[in-house]
């Protein structure tokens, strides 16, 4: 099996990685770049645990082949923190009780980030629609939806400027 070198941007850093045709973007992120925040749940597009933002849109990293990510701009959950400080969105997930076991949280947060980047004032329905590809077996979703809506409201009130990490890459 041929190895090939690809270049891509991950969390703002250009990197060159040797990939094989059986490697998924998920494997590239977790095993080659050792960014373990992105999770693998089902491995077949059903659960959203592996969600990352690719060229501005949320995708399941288990359904993208690593070679397909050549030249792509990828943001993972690690890309939301700045010098170890959580983004407003991550903070709201914690403060609103939207994290229990936490396995779904990175994927959930990446989809929510993509939504807020695209639509800074979503309705509850917009949030539920956007997150419908992210499964959570712990929280019952209510608090997750709250966390996203509270984040949008805080950003709307202008408190976002003082919070590092928001409005960054992607």
């Amino acid at each position: 099996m041929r190895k090939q070198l690809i270049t891509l941007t991950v969390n703002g850093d250009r990197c060159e990685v040797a990939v094989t045709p059986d490697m998924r973007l998920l494997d590239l992120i977790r095993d080659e770049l050792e960014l373990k925040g992105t999770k693998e749940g089902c491995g077949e597009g059903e659960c959203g645990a592996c969600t990352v933002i690719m060229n501005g849109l949320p995708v399941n990293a288990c359904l993208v082949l690593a070679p397909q990510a050549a030249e792509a701009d990828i943001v993972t959950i690690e890309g939301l923190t700045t010098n170890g400080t959580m983004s407003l969105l991550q903070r709201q997930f914690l403060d609103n009780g939207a994290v229990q076991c936490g396995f779904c949280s990175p994927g959930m947060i990446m989809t929510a980030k993509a939504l807020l980047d695209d639509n800074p004032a979503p309705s509850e329905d917009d949030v539920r629609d956007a997150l419908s590809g992210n499964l959570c077996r712990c929280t019952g979703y209510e608090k997750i939806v709250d966390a996203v809506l509270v984040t949008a409201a805080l950003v709307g009130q202008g408190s976002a400027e003082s919070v590092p990490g928001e409005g960054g890459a992607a």
Partner: protein
Amino acid sequence: MLSGTEYVRPSTMDEASGLLANDEGAVVLAGGTDVLVAAFAGRMSVSTLVDVSSLPELKGVEDWGDCVWIGALTTMTKLCASDVVNRVLPGLGSAAAAMGCWQVRNRATIGGNLCNASPSAEMGPPLLVYEAAVDLDGVGGKRRLPISEFFKGPGETALAKGELVTGIRIPKPDAGLRVAYVRRALRRSMDIPLVNVAVGVQMGDGVGVDARVALGAVAPVPFRVPVAEEILVGRPLTDSVIQEAAEGACCPARPITDVRATAEYRLAMVEVLVRRALIQLAEESV
């Protein structure tokens, strides 16, 4: 599995069709939401994945005056966001919005949906109602097929070895044709339809002048239902005509029982969904 598989991303049509024609196990890779799931689950063996994402011939959504051309690589998300689709082909936009979830819609292409040829393919019924044609190109040259001749069976299409779908060509319907798309799935999102239905009706002087009814997931391929269409033409869209057409639509349906639902349930759903679509259109026209 993909161990031993090669990956290539050709930059010209000739290169792509050559690869596909000369390698028995070569498989086209578009968004990968069907291919990669099947390959990683071991349901498909692949010698070479031919990533078509760099072929310019497969890209774009264009208004050509008398028709709309949709490149095979157009994702569901791009279809939903396209002005010309929302204006001229709203039934196609609704079907694209109903597919999977956001992550899947961001990758899933219209070409992949057609070529995967699932009996329940989201794009099947609306493209039948809009009387689309499929543009093909390959080692044998270019050709065009009506969508009704493209699907051959579950997972089977009219594609020849070494051939690609380049795009879908949809004649602009008369401004009076209104189209509704409805589906029934086990869950609101992330599930393929148990039954999907597209219905188009154009009224003139209070009676139907054009009627198109297409069903998916209740036979080996999605199909049009002339029996139901004939009931609607020349008559007003009243409750009793709607009921007659909804019942008529069930005659040619041959659904199967599987893990998602029984054949009886699917058949009952055909009637319900056709009725729902027609009621929606009747309400819009008052």
